[in-house]
């Protein structure tokens, strides 16, 4: 590689850090605000004495662990179910395509362009009839369906990179479809499958529209926990920020730990 001039490298570094700071700033501000007292929280001042008062108030007023548990169960459930449905679908599309495979994929993806609110009423009524309102199962189903197009699409692109020869060799070695997928396809695309799963987990964790509309208490995840602090009597910014911080902290830590995996899966091919 040609060695770049120093000024150019500095320029790129400044640009990179600048972009990172802009992206990170809201989170930073949330964290700062959560450490203020309520009166300080409405001012933009950054000279304040940090206090954990807001966190104490938040955890005293709501059962954080119950919400967090719902979030974990629903995010994992939605992800596992989406993968379980998407892996066979993507396998067939990648290795046994028909003339309509491409258009089916595009059509699936196009459903993501519809505003969710457009189907709120039918889904709500359906849920009420089926007794799925405020249940984890209900939310898992909705999240699965919500993420399925993206999950199928991503798995499809990862699967596409596996040479057909290798799967055919497996078939000649006596592998039926199940063994072929389990022993060959999935291990070969593991980075891709893992990053797809991670993305699905993150999307499920952060989803607010459906969770706010379809749950009230029993199955309410952390997004509902945050929302419960934006009360109509006026906003308490420190408490709201503290609630948001504890709600996003697990997924942030999780994302941080798995970032290498995520980047590897999303940028490089699945098969090396």
């Amino acid at each position, binding site marked *: 590689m040609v060695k770049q001039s120093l000024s150019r490298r500095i320029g790129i570094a400044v640009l990179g850090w600048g972009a990172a700071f802009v992206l990170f700033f809201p989170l930073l501000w949330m964290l700062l605000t959560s450490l203020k007292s309520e009166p300080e929280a409405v001012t933009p001042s950054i000279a304040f004495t940090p206090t954990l008062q807001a966190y104490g108030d938040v955890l005293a007023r709501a059962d954080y662990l119950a919400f967090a548990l719902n979030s974990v169960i629903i995010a994992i459930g939605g992800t596992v179910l989406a993968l379980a449905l998407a892996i066979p679908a993507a396998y067939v599309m990648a290795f046994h395509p028909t003339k309509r495979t491409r258009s089916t994929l595009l059509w699936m993806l196009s459903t993501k362009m519809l505003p969710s609110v457009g189907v709120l009423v039918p889904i709500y009524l359906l849920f009420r009839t089926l007794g799925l309102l405020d249940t984890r199962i209900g939310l898992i189903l909705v999240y699965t369906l919500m993420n399925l197009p993206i999950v199928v699409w991503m798995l499809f692109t990862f699967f596409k990179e596996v040479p057909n020869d290798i799967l055919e*060799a497996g078939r*000649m070695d006596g*592998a039926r479809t199940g063994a072929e997928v389990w022993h060959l396809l999935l291990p070969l695309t593991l980075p891709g499958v893992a990053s797809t799963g991670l993305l699905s987990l993150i999307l499920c964790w952060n989803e607010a529209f459906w969770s706010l509309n379809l749950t009230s208490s029993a199955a309410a995840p952390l997004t509902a926990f945050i929302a419960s602090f934006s009360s109509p009597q006026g906003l308490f910014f420190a408490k709201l920020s503290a609630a948001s911080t504890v709600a996003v902290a697990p997924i942030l830590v999780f994302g941080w730990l798995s970032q290498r995996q995520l980047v590897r899966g999303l940028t490089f091919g699945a098969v090396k």
Partner: protein
Amino acid sequence: MATLRLRALRKSYGTAEIIKGVDLDIADREFAVFVGPSGCGKSTLLRMIAGLEEITDGDLFIDGARVNEVGPADRGLAMVFQSYALYPHMSVRDNMAFALKLAGASKAERAAKVAEASRILQLDAYLDRKPKDLSGGQRQRVAIGRAIVRHPKIFLFDEPLSNLDAALRGQMRIELARLHRDLAATMIYVTHDQVEAMTMADKIVVLQAGRIEQVGSPLELYHHPANLFVAGFIGSPRMNLLPVRVVSGDPAGVRVGLPGGGEVVVPVDSTRAAPGTGVTLGIRPEALKPGAEGALAGAVRHVERLGGLTLAHVAVTDSAVADGATVVAQIEGSAPVRVGETIRLTIDPGATHLFDGEGRALPHQSRHPLAA
């Protein structure tokens, strides 16, 4: 025991027919080679046998049982792919043991069979490596080892040597032939290289455009090609083909006129060759020798010297055609021919062939002793 029977086998992709009705029998322990130009359907036919490609029409029998609807996992065949298609995430050992593991073989049995295959293929030192840490030749061996451990009914090879360099290819040809003898297994081998076909096959199947042109032993195809295509495809350098006219039918064969006025009697059945008919004369390069009484004359245009052999490209003089055809004479040793000189070539009538207007060979009066 493993025999294969193909009856009127056809394959179409949409409206394009790729395999156009193939009938073939392959005997137990036979080494059959499918050979033909690129795109003629060799791989497709092999994949139909393997079960990787659906059979559009016709019947396929393994050991007498019809298997059209049996999937590749259940046909009991093993295939070595051109790309090797090793499992990149598994060690050499696991690559070879995979089929056994799927079949539910015990750990001890797996280890024993892998050990046996790796001994035969000299892979012992590499069992714990991943495919990416192997050379092309070693990968090739692993691919073969993966087939061996299963003791399949039939081995299928799709151009397994085409990614190797020439020296390794020559060596692997010998190893595969040895393996065939040692394992006493039925093998089907696909190649576009007639040298591989000639050197390894018990039975060569020459394919062109989805049809079988001829089936026979290597020497049968060499000495008794059924048509112009096989005559031109089998043998290197290629058979010389000259358009000529029948002069007369002799008891000894068919007398044809040569460019430049000479004549030669080709020892073939003369009943189908009326005097005056246009036919094609085929002369193997080794049947042409420099000689003062030679029936062909021409200017040497190019000389290829291989040391033990000399290939002289000679433009034969033809009064009828301004610029006559070029023939190649394969002369033993380092012959003193020079570019530009005019030489005469004698023809060994025993290595000549005659093809009618449709390109079909006129049958020889007697068979070559080794090609009966």
